């Protein structure tokens, strides 16, 4: 683990709404180091997917990057042309999405869909691409890989489709793989299989992975570092052990406490967080978590706290007026 592969600074994303632009990602800064798994954790609407989509030029209509930079290979991804971005997507950055059924072309054989990327990005011949596609399916653990190339997406189960999606994501040996809730739609025993496949691939290929999820249990065993998003801002960033042992932002702590576990705790009631996350478009003026926070003080409601190290020089950073050291 060494230098940064990707450095995102002050990223902002706005979505057009009837009442004007809403800032759904604000001031997001983070780095992905070479070879690490970075977990991006948050609830629906926290901006975790928007952040990643903006890096790849895949924002939905109506959403736009409103500021910031994202440096990779000495270039700013946010400033690239459509053509340059196409070379990055699938080439330098692989992608795995939550729902492979809507990400595949339903009328193309999966072999052709895999081969398309290989020919485009790696300049392979038709025959070589088809052969490599078969090898890739074997790598992700699809039984009878060569025969499966001729299948259409609807002929595969959800778990198998997600394996194909992963094969496609890694087909050009990208240094960075972005996985957006890749196992959320899968059953738990299939999820364990997929997590295993990705873990092995990472050990073999040494790529960096950004794993976007809402599942704090799943990411615990996967990530090296984690950033926690709430209402479009990074509220905490820490090494994985640090985060689970010493969650410092009140939101992270409350979230972890509210999870039921397989361990018997004896507690009849779960400690819950009152209220619900704010609308992405209607963030309160101060800390976005303030309305739900048990530690709320007056200044929390007026100014957004900056993301600061918990101690001088610490890599554990938190955006909180009360529990942060910047207090």
């Amino acid at each position, binding site marked *: 683990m060494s230098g940064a592969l990707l450095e995102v600074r002050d990223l902002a994303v706005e979505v057009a709404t009837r009442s004007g632009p809403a800032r759904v990602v604000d001031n997001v800064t983070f780095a992905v180091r070479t070879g690490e798994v970075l977990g991006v954790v948050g609830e629906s609407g926290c901006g975790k997917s928007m952040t990643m989509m903006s890096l790849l030029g895949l924002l939905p209509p109506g959403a736009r990057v409103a500021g910031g930079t994202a440096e990779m290979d000495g270039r700013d991804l946010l400033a690239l042309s459509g053509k340059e971005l196409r070379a990055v997507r699938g080439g330098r950055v692989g992608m795995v999405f939550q729902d492979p059924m809507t990400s595949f072309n339903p009328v193309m054989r999966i072999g052709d869909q895999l081969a398309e990327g290989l020919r485009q990005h790696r300049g392979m011949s038709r025959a070589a691409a088809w052969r490599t596609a078969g090898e890739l399916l074997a790598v992700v653990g699809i039984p009878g890989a060569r025969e499966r190339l001729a299948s259409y997406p609807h002929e595969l189960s959800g778990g198998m489709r997600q394996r194909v999606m992963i094969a496609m994501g890694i087909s050009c040996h990208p240094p960075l793989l972005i996985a957006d809730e890749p196992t959320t739609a899968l059953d*738990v*025993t299939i999820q364990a299989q997929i997590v295993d496949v990705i873990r092995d691939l990472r050990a073999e290929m040494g790529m960096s992975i950004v794993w976007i999820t809402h599942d*704090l249990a799943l990411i615990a065993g996967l990530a090296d570092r984690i950033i926690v998003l709430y209402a479009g801002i990074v509220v905490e960033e820490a090494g994985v052990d640090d985060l689970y042992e010493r969650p410092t932002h009140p939101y992270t702590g409350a979230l972890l406490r509210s999870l039921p*576990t397989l361990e018997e705790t004896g507690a009849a009631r779960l400690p*819950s967080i009152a209220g619900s996350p704010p609308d992405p478009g209607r963030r309160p003026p101060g800390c976005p978590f303030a309305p739900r926070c048990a530690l709320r003080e007056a200044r929390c409601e007026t100014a957004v706290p900056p993301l600061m190290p918990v101690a001088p020089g610490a890599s554990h950073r938190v955006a909180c007026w009360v529990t942060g050291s910047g207090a």
Partner: protein
Amino acid sequence: MTTLPPATATAIESAPCLRISGLQKHYHVRLGAFGTRHATVHALDDFSLEVIRGETLSLVGESGCGKSTAGMAILQLYRPTAGSVLFDGVDLCTLAEKEMRPLRRRLQVIFQDPYSTLNPRMTVGEAVGEPAAHHRGLAGPALRAEVERLLGDVGLAAPFAKRFPHELSGGQRQRVAIARALACAPEFVVCDEAISALDVSVQAQIINLLQDLQERYRLTFLFIAHDLAVVRHISTRVAVMFLGRLAELAPKQRLFSAPRHPYTRALLSAVPEPDPVRERARKRQILAGEVPSPMAPPPGCRFHTRCPIATDVCRAEVPAWRDLGAGHWIACHHA
């Protein structure tokens, strides 16, 4: 609701609320471009258990295992193709829809996605008031007071009665769906993935709410879910299903600490826990392969194609659903 003298009430506590035996649901489907091939989906087979009054019985298993089908078949929302469901001395499976209607008040359901079950053009007050008016004959000021009381029960302030579903958050909508089920003053409620779609920070609120309401109104829950951590927290007993059949049933404590069925063990071992140190150290038992198709379930034990300890007898004979004592039931030749 009828009030019973205390002595009778205690006697009823331990009595089963529902006695289900041999419940089966098969669908006939047509396949192929011209629908000329026929097949039978074995969605639910030989489902037998008792639901005890006041308990939370959880049904767990992976998608397609028949857990929702079981819930719907018990409520007669899908008519079972065989078996019986005894409720209050009556076999629900033999009732015509018209005879079933008065019982529907007592048997309610809460679904996963209240956005698709609430009428978008009805206010919250209308949605919650409708079942109270229909089943309990409330009207006018009495109905309005009841709606306000029900909303209070689920933690929503009175002004919410004037709102529409699209103005609410996911957690608030689920509260409305719960209030609507409560409006019937039910005895038995099927919670079909009722908290699965909620955000983590909201999920705990709804779990607590369901537990409070159960205590207050002595509700019996059939809790259908796939999240085993939630199930561990909320259940009295847990039943595990695989491909349309019950695999194991035991009191919660026992199922989680001493699972006997190889499928239950694999399922528990696949659940990640929010603890990085333990997760890294953990040895996972990863099940090979996938769930077979319910259109062609394997002969013998339906789990044998993925089972690490399967033998010849598993491939040939369906294991009997047998009692291991202490409320622990299992369908496995080798456990």
